[in-house]
């Protein structure tokens, strides 16, 4: 299920939940959704979706790459079955992430890779597997990255996910307000922070995102440009690519002021 509202409502793009009963049916085995869109910043309201998924006997998998590092997330409260997030979006190392699953489902799942440390017993004709999670972690572990991610998550937890979320919402409000004031800048995604996080994608008139991104990079500002691994979505939004600014615990309102100043300078440069 990956539909967005078909109407092109600038500034209010969100998942259309009116037809979930016809999209999630008894034929559905898995519902996999992102918690917070990496393009639009929208936070998906999960309650009805998870309930419907379980009503039809399916499994709910949550991509939490943009939510776990940014706000309190409780898998029990959400009642989901699996959750995944990556280390590099949580001030951690690259090449490592977390998959959480319900114990009974992990027990049911067969391994998909084989190697050292994942067996219970092996003979010439058969093998049995170690209990999860070892069953899914064959071979030499990715030790340095795993330890690094553990430290990163402890660091975030110590600061407090509630405090991080509050800081981000304040920054996002400030950014939406400041960026909305820039001529020919169009924000894709909600213009308020009711159900959105700090990923703010936008277009700037005819200036191509790669040119804008290069300009901002030169000014010491890191943004992401392109279709954000979501080409069908950017096509649906009617744009070739967007520029995305995103905020985290280390950002300040001064950073946003600098971003806006540099956007104005880019307009002059490419204008």
């Amino acid at each position, binding site marked *: 299920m990956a539909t967005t509202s078909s109407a092109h409502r600038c500034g209010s793009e969100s998942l259309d939940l009116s037809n979930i009963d016809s999209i999630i049916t008894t034929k559905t085995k898995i519902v996999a959704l992102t918690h917070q869109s990496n393009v639009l910043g929208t936070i998906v309201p999960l309650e009805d979706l998870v309930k419907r998924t379980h009503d039809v006997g399916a499994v709910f998998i949550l991509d939490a790459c943009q939510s776990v590092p940014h706000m309190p997330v409780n898998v029990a409260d959400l009642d989901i079955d699996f959750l995944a997030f990556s280390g590099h979006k949580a001030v951690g190392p690259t090449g490592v992430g977390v998959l959480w699953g319900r114990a009974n489902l992990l027990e049911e799942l067969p391994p998909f890779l084989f190697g050292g440390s994942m067996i219970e017993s092996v003979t010439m004709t058969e093998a049995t597997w170690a209990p999860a999670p070892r069953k899914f972690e064959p071979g030499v572990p990715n030790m340095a990255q795993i330890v690094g991610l553990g430290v990163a998550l402890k660091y975030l937890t110590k600061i407090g996910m509630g405090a991080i979320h509050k800081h981000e919402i304040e920054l996002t409000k400030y950014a939406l307000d400041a960026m909305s004031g820039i001529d020919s800048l169009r924000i894709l995604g909600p213009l308020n922070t009711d159900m959105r996080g700090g990923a703010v994608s936008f277009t700037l008139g005819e200036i*191509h*995102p*790669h*040119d804008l991104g*290069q*300009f901002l990079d*030169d000014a010491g500002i890191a943004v992401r*440009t*392109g*279709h954000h691994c979501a*080409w069908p979505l*950017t096509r649906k939004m009617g744009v*070739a*690519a967007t520029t995305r600014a995103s905020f985290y615990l280390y950002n300040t309102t001064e950073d946003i002021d600098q971003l806006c100043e540099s956007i104005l300078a880019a307009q002059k*440069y*490419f204008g």
Partner: protein
Amino acid sequence: MQLDNLYQEVILDHYKNPQNKKLSATYDAQVHHVNPSCGDEIDLNVTIKNGEVSAITWDGVGCSISQASVSVLTDLLIGKSISDAYRVFDEFVALMQSKGAVTGDEDLLEDAVAFAGVSKYPARIKCALLGWMAFKDASVQAQSKG
């Protein structure tokens, strides 16, 4: 400003006033190329007459580097013999792969030497080459028809 090495005046001029950016109704070969890492797309038509590149027209969406690069290409290669066009092509590709070590042969590349700075930005080299690779593809197809 470091950025001015990348965005030479020639590049910004071609970006704002792209040359031959209107697909011709007739052609010997037409190709469609994309840069999957950024979504830039180009359609390009080539006509070859008596071993000479008689027309190149194109349309597309993309960043200033990709748009200016194909615009410069059309200015440079229309009217050249196929073998001369490929000499320019080879020189331009070598320039893009030079990591900033060479400035390019101005006699051969003319306005295209303005892209020398691009070779220092690995992420942008594909932008500069998009139209050139489309030309190579289309010209090979046009000749094989020939």
